């Protein structure tokens, strides 16, 4: 066990030399990358405004509001689970922060802190019920989705007396919280909003986490084959619960942005957004069955979403076309993923 006989550093003759291109083609996010480039060129042609720095910053901003969530959702999907409550949980977090601060007239940072606790708890509860009952996450999170939807509406009306929360703009800590969650950074005359930076940082951290840490190894394993993972000592339960809490954390970040971009929250929002996050992750190469995907892929998926969303506006088309585009991109990117993966595997 102690003496390791070093084999000759042989390049096995059975391994055809894989070129850089072949390696790139083996990546999960290749389909999304191709799709993103095609879409970028397409909109650059049909809507030249698209290429201006300010428009591009707007596209990035639109992408980040999906992308922040897509990070957590992509990791969760690699870990083999879904979260249908992710869309409304964002609003639950924002509602918690604003209603708590308003009702108790506290510094808004206290509300922000409480919202983080609530978001992580929602994630924990999702994961815990899943691991306890062994029900599919589709069912468990569908239930929490419905419950949260109801709670958002009912509690907001009960506490604030309306479907939207009262404004918290004049409260202590609002300005500093806004400076963190919804700031405008003017760089070389271009207005870039803080979620864009938060998004990029999140993607960088999770990519590293996924590919270079033990936890990352476990995430792939619990999604690929939970029984095999458990048998070699991977803490399957905690990995999955942690992934749901990760989605909760991302929901908190986005929820705080939603709150501080204005000063109030509509309690009925967020429904349906969970599918946008899942779509971004799937376009980005995450397998629906788990065990395969990347954080970067989710980011590119979100970027495709942002481009299609804003590009249609810049091209001065009717926004009705947007959903069609999104569906088409989903289909194309996943087909490209499939083809590329098959070809890469057969080489």
């Amino acid at each position: 066990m102690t003496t390791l006989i070093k084999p000759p550093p042989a390049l096995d003759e059975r391994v055809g030399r894989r070129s850089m291109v072949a390696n790139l083609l083996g990546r999960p996010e290749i389909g999304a990358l191709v799709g993103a480039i095609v879409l970028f060129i397409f909109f650059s042609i049909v809507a030249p405004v698209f290429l201006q720095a300010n428009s591009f910053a707007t596209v990035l901003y639109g992408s980040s509001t999906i992308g922040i969530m897509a990070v957590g959702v992509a990791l969760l999907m690699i870990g083999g689970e879904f979260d249908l409550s992710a869309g409304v949980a964002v609003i639950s977090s924002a509602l918690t922060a604003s209603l708590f601060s308003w009702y108790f007239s506290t510094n808004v940072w206290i509300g922000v802190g409480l919202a983080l606790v609530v978001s992580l708890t929602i994630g924990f509860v999702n994961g815990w019920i899943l691991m306890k009952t062994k029900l599919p996450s589709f069912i468990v999170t569908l239930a929490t989705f419905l419950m949260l939807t109801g709670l958002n509406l009912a509690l907001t009306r009960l506490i604030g007396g309306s479907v939207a929360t009262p404004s918290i703009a004049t409260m202590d800590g609002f300005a500093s919280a806004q400076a963190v969650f919804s700031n405008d950074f003017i760089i070389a005359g271009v207005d870039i909003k803080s979620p864009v930076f938060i998004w990029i940082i999140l993607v960088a951290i999770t990519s590293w986490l996924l590919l270079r840490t033990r936890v990352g190894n476990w995430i792939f394993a619990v999604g690929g084959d939970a029984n095999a993972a458990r048998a070699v000592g991977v803490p399957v339960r905690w990995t999955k619960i942690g992934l749901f809490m990760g989605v909760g954390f991302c929901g908190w970040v986005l929820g705080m942005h939603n709150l501080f971009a204005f000063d109030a929250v509509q309690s009925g929002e967020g429904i349906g957004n969970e599918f946008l996050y899942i779509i971004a992750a799937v376009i980005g190469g995450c397998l629906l069955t788990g065990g395969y995907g990347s954080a970067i892929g989710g980011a590119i998926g979100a970027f495709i979403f942002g481009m299609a969303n804003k590009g249609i506006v810049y091209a001065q088309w009717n926004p009705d076309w947007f959903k069609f585009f999104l569906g088409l991109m989903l289909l194309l990117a996943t087909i490209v993923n499939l083809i590329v993966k098959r070809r890469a595997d057969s080489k």
Partner: protein
Amino acid sequence: MASNDMTSNETAKHGPGGAGTGAHGAGPDIDQETLLQHEKDTLTHTPVHLMELEAVGKHYGNIIALTEVTMAVDMGRVTCVLGDNGAGKSTLIKIIAGLHQHDEGTFKIMGEERRLGSPREALDAGIAAVYQDLAVVGLMPIWRNFFLGSEITIGRGPFRRLDVKRMKEVTKSELAQMGIDLRDVEQPVGQLSGGERQCVAIARAVHFGAKALILDEPTAALGVKQSGVVLRYILQARDRGLGVIFITHNPHHAYPVGDRFLLLKRGKSIGYYDKKDITLEELTAQMAGGAELAELAHELEAMGGHGELVDQVQAEVAETTGQTPR
């Protein structure tokens, strides 16, 4: 390493009688000794077994999957568990590997009574299992699979990260030592053949200082040649001083590599033999149940069944009972 501590413990427990029996698993130079020990030991004379089951039973709800099973596992020995489908073989090893807990009897590791709550606990006790249905994660590269759950890291605190380069090197060299020549450790395990996959799992268990290796029907889905390869790794693991539990329903695979044989049928032990006390023919006969086979041949004939099939069954009856066909 923890395994070394355990090994020296074991030496101490062996006391004067088992001179030096414990120091196995440290390197290839031990092989001779292990083999010698073979000749001396019998089922009953080893003072402390690596693992020992006594009258172990297990039921799932009202289904009794296992009753009154007694067996022992020693270092440098192969204990074979034989039985037909549903005999309780997988249940037995799941108890030993910490996936399920027994309801009756005692299970001792190094002479100490234990009840393993999780696979992690079993691994910490030096027991590694290679399951028939859950060996590896197909989509993950070989090296990630090899180290899954026991990854090598560098750095501290939030900057603790995988030592990818070292893990790849170790994977390659460990597999080479087991005589497994793999193309590329970045390859997803799912692309390997069934036999290669089993071998990766075996090499992994050996590398992580397992003292006991459990193999659940590793040859069941394999062709003749691949089965031979896996059987060779079983012997290699034995020669490295591991106690091996080899589960199979094929006596022709079990007999050449086994030192002891436990026969299960419908959750009950129908025999427990040292190799010197049983021949391959006897083992096969016990397994198949010679009388049942003869009956089957009659039935098929009575039904006016296909001649070829009847001949085949009769030939098998002849083989298992040592008689010539009529």
